[in-house]
């Protein structure tokens, strides 16, 4: 650690130079409102809990990436103690239906707000506040049986009426209204005290995955929300293992044990184990790691490859910490605006992609040995990953890429209207993050080296960057060119792919007879009616093999038409003092192994300090 401060100076100095010295929100963050899928069965039931000495493992381990092993805890748990965790940002609010919630916010919210379902280590969805569920044949009605004896922090009971009342707020919530629409929820009906039915306006075979996200599945006490709409943000009332004790914005938020929590461990011991958890937003990556190493905090999260590298170095230097690394589906890279010449021509898109040296870009991002090169929206650890797609993706081949550009440049019918032989012009844009700037410099140099591409590099702050690609309502056709972006998540593919590649405008939708079905977040403005059909088909069946085949076809189409490009998959990290256990070994009520800590989001109910 002798030179750790020196290592931090260079990037910080760069940040200062570009006027963005104070990191904060992060493009890596996985939105809470993007819910998940992967339900499959007609009816799920709870299963017998695993025995204490069983070690469960999930996921495959790809070579050269981070350790994503999820395994059950074997140490004997103990009560008491406080975990202080450094987060990358403060939560803007803690109302599940109203406030946007990225990874650091979810770390906090998950302590107080339970969701209806949880994700297992194998990617499927299992019971949480919903004990079991089933659907009708057409996947338009989903019936959920609820856990008994669950109390909110204010003493109210959780039941079917709670969900009906919540839905009134969710329908108009700034966050949840969109999720309600994407999930096609038309109505929520209380069948009896502990049975609720979600009636959809269209088929969705993966609907329960939406109840994993806090936007629709985060259970809050509706009376408290109605009584104090704004105040709920500071003092959320859920059924979670911890209750709000103190919220000092941008300084510390303290939650304390919920004595009436509904869950017990497999030996019947009341959860949670910890007395309290303190959340401290520490935006600066280096300071957050230093705070852990100095004992100011006992845990930290990061979504940055460079920080993972530094944390590994600290551990190698003897720091007594555990590194919980996770290689997610989320993949960096960018998108070509398929609406703007010359990027509307597949030869240009494919040529630019083939001239993009992924390994060099990942190295510039600080991800060598941490982040795997992406070829699709799924990492090799995902059940949706396809070797066939990996083989088909146009990999780095400078000469082949240059030949494609040359073909376009010499085409008398080139789409940009320029004369034969004229250079093409491409805007390459990334947010002003030092590592991202380093990465686009690599790409810019490669593209410029052809002598046929005038690359115009631009940097906008994160929000402007997004808005630039989004464009303005009602058409939402951004004016961007080649635009840094992130794709995918560990959620069910339908939750992001179906909206990402729906018709980008109402006009295009109408042209294909899809009136009213459009998506402003089709940022590449790429639409293929055949591919869209596959996406729709994938939510009309719950047979994994069929869905896998459909998503593989979608990925193959992306490999052919190249509307986007990839750098590496995003690795995330939760680092903790080595006596903090249970972060990666939590179990669902049916005894199955939970998903661990995707996107550096911990579940606190089963975390304990080994004394």
């Amino acid at each position: 650690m002798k030179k750790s401060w020196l290592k931090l100076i260079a990037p910080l100095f760069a940040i200062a130079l570009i006027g963005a010295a104070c990191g904060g929100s992060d493009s890596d963050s996985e939105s809470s409102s993007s819910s998940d899928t992967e339900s499959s069965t007609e009816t799920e039931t709870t299963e017998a809990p695993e025995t204490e000495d069983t070690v469960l493992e999930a996921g495959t381990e790809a070579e050269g990436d981070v350790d994503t092993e999820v395994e059950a805890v074997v140490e004997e748990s103990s009560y008491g103690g406080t975990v202080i965790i450094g987060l990358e940002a403060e939560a803007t609010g803690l109302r599940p239906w109203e406030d946007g919630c990225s990874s650091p916010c979810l770390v906090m919210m998950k302590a107080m707000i339970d969701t209806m379902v949880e994700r297992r280590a194998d990617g499927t969805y299992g019971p949480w506040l919903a004990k079991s569920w089933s659907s009708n044949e057409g996947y338009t009605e989903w019936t959920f049986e609820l856990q008994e004896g669950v109390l909110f922090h204010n003493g109210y009971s959780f039941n079917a009426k709670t969900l009906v009342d919540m839905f009134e707020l969710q329908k108009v919530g700034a966050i949840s209204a969109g999720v309600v629409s994407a999930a096609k929820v038309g109505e929520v009906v209380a069948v009896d005290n502990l049975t609720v039915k979600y009636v959809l306006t269209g088929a969705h075979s993966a609907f329960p995955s939406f109840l994993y996200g806090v936007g629709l599945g985060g259970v809050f006490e509706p009376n408290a929300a109605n009584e104090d709409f704004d105040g709920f943000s500071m003092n959320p009332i859920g059924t979670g293992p911890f209750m709000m004790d103190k919220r000092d914005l941008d300084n510390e938020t303290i939650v304390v044990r919920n004595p009436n929590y509904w869950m017990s461990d497999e030996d019947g011991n009341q959860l949670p184990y910890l007395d309290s958890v303190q959340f401290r937003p520490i935006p600066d990556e280096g300071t957050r790691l230093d705070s852990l190493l100095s004992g100011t905090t006992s845990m930290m999260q990061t979504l940055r490859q460079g920080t993972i590298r530094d944390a590994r170095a600290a551990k190698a230097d003897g720091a007594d910490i555990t590194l919980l690394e996770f290689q997610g589906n989320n993949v960096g890279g960018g998108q070509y605006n398929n609406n703007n010449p010359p990027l509307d021509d597949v030869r240009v898109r494919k040529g630019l992609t083939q001239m993009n040296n992924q390994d060099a870009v990942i190295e510039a991002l600080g991800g060598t040995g941490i982040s795997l090169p992406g070829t699709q929206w799924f990492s090799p650890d995902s059940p949706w990953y396809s070797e066939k797609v990996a083989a088909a993706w146009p990999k780095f081949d400078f000469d082949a890429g240059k030949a494609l550009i040359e073909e376009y440049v010499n085409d008398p019918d080139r789409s940009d209207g320029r004369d034969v032989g004229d250079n093409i012009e491409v805007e390459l844009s990334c947010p002003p993050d030092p590592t991202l700037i380093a990465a686009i410099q690599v790409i810019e140099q490669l593209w410029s080296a052809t002598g046929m591409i005038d690359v115009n590099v631009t940097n906008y702050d994160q929000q402007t960057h997004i808005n630039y690609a989004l464009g303005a309502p009602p058409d939402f056709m951004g004016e961007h060119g080649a635009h840094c972006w992130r794709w995918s998540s560990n959620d069910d593919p339908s939750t992001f792919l179906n909206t990402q590649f729906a018709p980008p405008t109402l006009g295009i939708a109408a042209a294909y007879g899809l009136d009213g079905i459009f998506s402003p977040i089709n940022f590449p403005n790429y639409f293929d009616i055949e591919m869209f059909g596959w996406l729709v088909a994938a939510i009309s069946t719950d047979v994994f093999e069929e869905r896998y085949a459909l998503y593989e076809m979608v990925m193959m189409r992306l490999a052919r038409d190249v509307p986007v490009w990839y750098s590496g998959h995003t690795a995330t990290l939760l680092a903790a003092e080595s006596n903090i256990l249970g972060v990666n070994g939590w179990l669902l009520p049916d005894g199955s192994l939970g998903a661990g800590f995707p996107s550096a989001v911990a579940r606190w109910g089963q975390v304990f300090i080994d004394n």
Partner: protein
Amino acid sequence: MGKILTVRLARLVATLFAVSLLTFLLVEQLPGDPVTALLPPEALHDLETIERIRAELQLDDPALVRYGRWVTDALQGDLGKSYITDQRVADAIRDRIPVTMELALLATVIAAVLAVPIGAFSAYREGGRFDRMMSGFTTAALSIPAFVAAIFFIWLFTLKFNWLPSTGWNRITDKGLLANLKTAILPASALALAPLAINARLIRADMIGTLKEDYVLSARAKGLRDRYILMRHALRPSALTAITVFGLQLGGLIGGTVVIETVFALPGLGTRLISGIYQRDVMMIQGITLFVATVYVVVNTAVDLLYLALDPRIRRQ
């Protein structure tokens, strides 16, 4: 004096008007729609929701109307409500200003307490070893950005010696003064480096001149002790310049805490401003910028007026 006061106050109002207008226009010019920035991707295809929120936030009014409404409300102490968190901007400022003010004040105190003896003794030993050493120190202190000093301090006092916490803020009201100082001293010290160097140099230069004045030579001739001459006869006239600069620096330090608050993760105005920028929280950006500008302009004007009151020669000019 009355005329001068009127002119200064008129300038103050004009400056604040310009700041408010510029801030509003700059935020207005940012590409993109603040409403779409508020919503998650899933909600963007719901045009009805977008329009409903736009209407609720009165964003469909012309820019001039919105500016007029904002300024009118601001004059009555209402800086609006955050689009993102629904918190009132005035409340956010009220909650955070104690941290930022304490940092700025503590940095000023540290700078003053160290700059006076360093400057005075350097002047007294002009060209000597101490003077040369301090000259090197002040050059280094001026060259090193505050955030680099902050990182160095964290490395030294937290990682190396584990004396002080690297992050967090203990509020005096919650945990007492000592606990508070434990969290405040590192960031305040990082913030104090540049003003300390400037003030030490200023005092040194001023005192070198003062020490050559006839009355100082006369005092020496009378056999008064050096320390007495330095503190009573030489420092007093030089202090006027230093006090002015300290005052001006205080205003600047409030703005300067932005980076330091971020590095040390402190719940001050700077942190809130930065998160507001990242979140495109228009009202928060405008409100905090106007507030910081107001403090800066008011402190500057107050120092100007104090200077006028203290020095009759300037009044006459």
